[in-house]
């Protein structure tokens, strides 16, 4: 029957024909259904318009209503209806939603138990498609019955049904308990056997294995114990001729390596993954888009692998992509993140990248329409700006980049704001030029605004940036900053509800009072508001870093004039909440060596022989029991502590003779 090129079937007519309840109309229904199916397959635009017209419920009702009266046509209707539902859900969130809302899931599951292979195939395919979407409901893996059904699916002879079982696992297995439950139910053995099956079985199995073993050393050891060759099989697949198989097997191995590196060490496969992933970057499709993300997870935090990648010219290759063409969003994000990971620790990577002169794309990416790309480029900037020599040479920090970063501080996406704050923190930490540029571009107000955010991560990162900003600056600069920030606001931050915010606020204060003597006055302003805050936190805080930063402040203040030293003394002798010992004694007993070092320095500052009040302070300290405490520490395990303790004791002893002992 010749068909015309353009549809002469009006869409709404079509839906009426689909919904007809007369059983005579089955033939016509089938025609309409096939027509609809062929209209929508591959055609996203048509899918959306048919969804709007309400086609999905009409099709789903065919699944539920199919009368056994006319078996032949019933079979065809079921197959076509299942295929159509699957197509609506394919790659389209709106379609998945429509299909789920219309109640198709249980109906499709029913199809799998039909005695007809074609129907089973159709049902399984469509279910697999649905379970590839995040919107599909979570399959409850805690229920015994469900696990049994899942095993039945996996053990099925039918390729599509087995693949469905694997897809459900990939979709629904989230927690380590679920991972263990699946492993105990015997899923691992089955999945490994699927690795030797057809292309789609292999790929489905690789995804499931990666999901089940993710961050779970116990399951990984079960896998290796059960099937010794499992990892070798997966390694072989990294050389498979299908790119997606290669990518999925790499992802699997990377996941195992990140959790339990021991299993892969003997095989020496890890270094070989770098060239394989580099090669996958060339794939023009989805595989090439995902390859840089795999590279990131491989090298993140691992300098040896970053080195290896550098030797393999990964930096050049990734940067090549920028010159080539307009990049698809996902790929752009991936490449930026991969470059960030590569440049996170190794200076040679950063230098190489900067020498390639690809910086114009950075400015472009900062204003990209996609938030994830903007976030990625900020993370990249944070890593690249760890290159002190390039920062100082002013090699890449330009006014344009700084103003764009400041603009991003206003983003409606928290993740972008935090990433921008991270980049700014690194850029402003050294070199007055960058600090001034930042202030001139209006960044200070933005930072202070963000330090008042309701979101604690934003507050934290904003305070961190501020802290870096005033690091090693002149008092005039500090005055300007404090004028805008205000003592009260700083007080609030030191007393913040979040310990990490407290920590960075105290770090800010430490940097503030470091340097010229007049800066120490800040601590005593408004009747010693800030000093009180520091003391309060030191007495009550539990987080080590808060105690460390707080003591740094006191140590710096103790290097000042008499009045300053007296202020510190008062705080040090107060009992802390946890054990009611005087602060100085308690902290000297801390297991944290850094804290012990700072405390001994503080004592040295306080009892410096040339200061007039030193003898009195020495007495007070002795009365608090400082001498036996210090004597205990003469052979401290930390060299720094040992040396300072001896210096402090030496100083105290110069006042000791002739004074009343405890």
């Amino acid at each position, binding site marked *: 029957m010749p068909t015309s090129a353009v549809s002469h079937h009006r869409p709404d007519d079509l839906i009426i024909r689909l919904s007809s309840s007369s059983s005579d109309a089955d033939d016509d229904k089938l025609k309409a259904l096939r027509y609809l199916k062929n209209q929508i397959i591959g055609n*996203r635009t048509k899918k959306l318009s048919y969804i709007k017209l309400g086609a999905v419920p009409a099709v789903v009702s065919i699944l539920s209503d199919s009368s056994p009266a006319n078996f032949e046509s019933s079979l065809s209707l079921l197959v076509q209806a299942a295929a159509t539902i699957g197509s609506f859900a394919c790659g389209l969130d709106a379609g998945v939603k429509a299909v789920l809302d219309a109640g198709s899931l249980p109906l499709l599951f029913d199809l799998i138990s039909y005695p007809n292979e074609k129907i089973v195939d159709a049902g399984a*395919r469509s279910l697999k498609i649905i379970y590839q979407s995040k919107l599909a409901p979570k399959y409850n893996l805690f229920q015994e019955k469900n696990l049994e059904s899942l095993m039945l699916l996996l053990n099925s002879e039918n390729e599509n049904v087995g693949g469905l079982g694997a897809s459900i696992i990939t979709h629904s297995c989230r927690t380590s308990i679920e991972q263990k439950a699946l492993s105990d139910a015997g899923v691992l053995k089955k999945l490994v056997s699927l690795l030797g099956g057809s*292309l789609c079985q292999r790929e489905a199995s690789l995804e499931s294995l990666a999901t089940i073993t993710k961050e779970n050393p116990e399951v990984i050891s079960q896998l290796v114990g059960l099937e010794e060759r499992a990892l070798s099989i997966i390694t072989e697949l990294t050389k498979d001729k299908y790119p997606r198989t290669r990518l999925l097997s790499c992802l699997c191995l990377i996941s195992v390596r990140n959790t339990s590196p021991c299993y892969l060490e003997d095989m020496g496969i890890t270094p070989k993954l770098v060239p394989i992933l580099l090669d996958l970057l060339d794939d023009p499709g989805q595989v090439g888009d995902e390859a840089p993300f795999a590279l990131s997870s491989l090298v993140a935090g691992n300098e040896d692998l970053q080195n290896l990648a550098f030797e393999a010219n990964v930096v050049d290759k990734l940067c090549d992509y920028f010159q080539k063409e307009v990049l698809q969003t996902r790929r752009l994000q991936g490449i930026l993140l991969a470059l960030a990971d590569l440049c996170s620790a190794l200076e040679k990577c950063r230098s190489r990248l900067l020498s390639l002169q690809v910086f114009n794309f950075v400015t472009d990416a900062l204003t990209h329409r996609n938030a994830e790309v903007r976030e990625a480029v900020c993370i990249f900037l944070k890593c690249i700006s760890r290159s002190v020599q390039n920062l100082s040479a002013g090699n890449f920090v330009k006014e344009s980049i700084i103003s764009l970063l400041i603009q991003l501080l206003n983003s409606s996406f928290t993740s972008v704001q935090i990433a921008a704050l991270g980049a700014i923190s690194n850029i402003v930490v050294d070199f007055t030029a960058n600090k001034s540029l930042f202030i001139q571009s209006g960044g200070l107000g933005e930072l202070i605004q963000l330090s008042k955010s309701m979101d604690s991560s934003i507050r934290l990162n904003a305070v961190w940036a501020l802290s870096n900003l005033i690091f090693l600056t002149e008092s005039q600069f500090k005055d300007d900053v404090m004028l805008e920030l205000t003592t009260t606001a700083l007080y609030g931050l030191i007393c913040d509800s979040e310990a990490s915010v407290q920590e960075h606020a105290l770090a800010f204060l430490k940097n503030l009072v470091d340097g010229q003597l007049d800066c120490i006055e800040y601590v005593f302003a408004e009747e010693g508001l800030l000093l009180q805050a520091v003391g309060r936190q030191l007495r009550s805080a539990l987080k080590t870093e808060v105690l460390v930063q707080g003591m740094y402040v006191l140590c710096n203040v103790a290097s000042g004039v008499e009045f300053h030293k007296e202020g510190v003394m008062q705080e040090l002798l107060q009992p802390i909440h946890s054990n009611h010992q005087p602060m100085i004694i308690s902290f000297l007993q801390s297991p944290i060596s850094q804290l012990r070092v700072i405390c001994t320095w503080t004592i040295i500052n306080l009892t410096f022989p040339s200061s007039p009040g030193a003898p009195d302070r020495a007495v007070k300290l002795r009365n608090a029991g400082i001498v036996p405490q210090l004597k205990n520490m003469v052979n401290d395990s930390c060299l720094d502590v040992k040396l300072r303790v001896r210096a402090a004791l030496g100083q105290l002893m110069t006042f000791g003779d002739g004074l009343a002992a405890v």
Partner: protein
Amino acid sequence: MSLFWIVIRQLAEIEAMQATSKKVITKEEWEKKLNDVKIKKEDMNKLVMNFLVTEGYVDAAEKFRFESGTEPDIDLATITDRMAVKKAVQCGNVEDAIEKVNDLNPEILDTNPQLFFHLQQQRLIELIRNGKVEEALEFAQEELAPRGEENPSFLEELERTVALLAFEDVANCPVKDLLDISQRLKTASEVNAAILTSQSHEKDPKLPSLLKMLIWAQNQLDEKAAYPRIKDLSTAKLEGPSI
């Protein structure tokens, strides 16, 4: 002895030769070496079957299976379906081809946007070829334009195709290559490959690779020795060596 045997022995012998460094080998010596090369008949049969199956010669594959006892590595029934699709495209019945592909496996076109685009493109070309200009315009607007919107990388090809509509004398316009039969064959081949991949079958037969390997191996050996070469693959005749 079949040409096939000769070719394969030639290849095996050359590969063995690479290790030594003889300068000139006479035809006599060479043929003697070839005779010593052991090739299994079953392997040859599998190669032939692989070729027939991948290229879609169903009847020939059936007969060959019957006569040689070689089992094909995929179900011959699926070849018939696949060939029907390929033939439909080669004849310009693209809409029919699309329906058949969707019956075979509805996921193929849903997950291969480039293939789907090329099939739609072919539909447009066929409409233009048949002089149905108005229908072609409507089709371009309703079916092809959305593909360009969904995927900007298709825009260039889309423009080329739509350009056909701008010319009175399509047979002589700058984009006339689109009207060639070769364009149909290209699309047909793409569909064939996609179906084979979805059935997890290799989309390329092994035989051409073997022949390519032979030519490459001969070129490599040419640098080291003079020996009888196969110049004409279709006759597999040993020629030379030229001294």
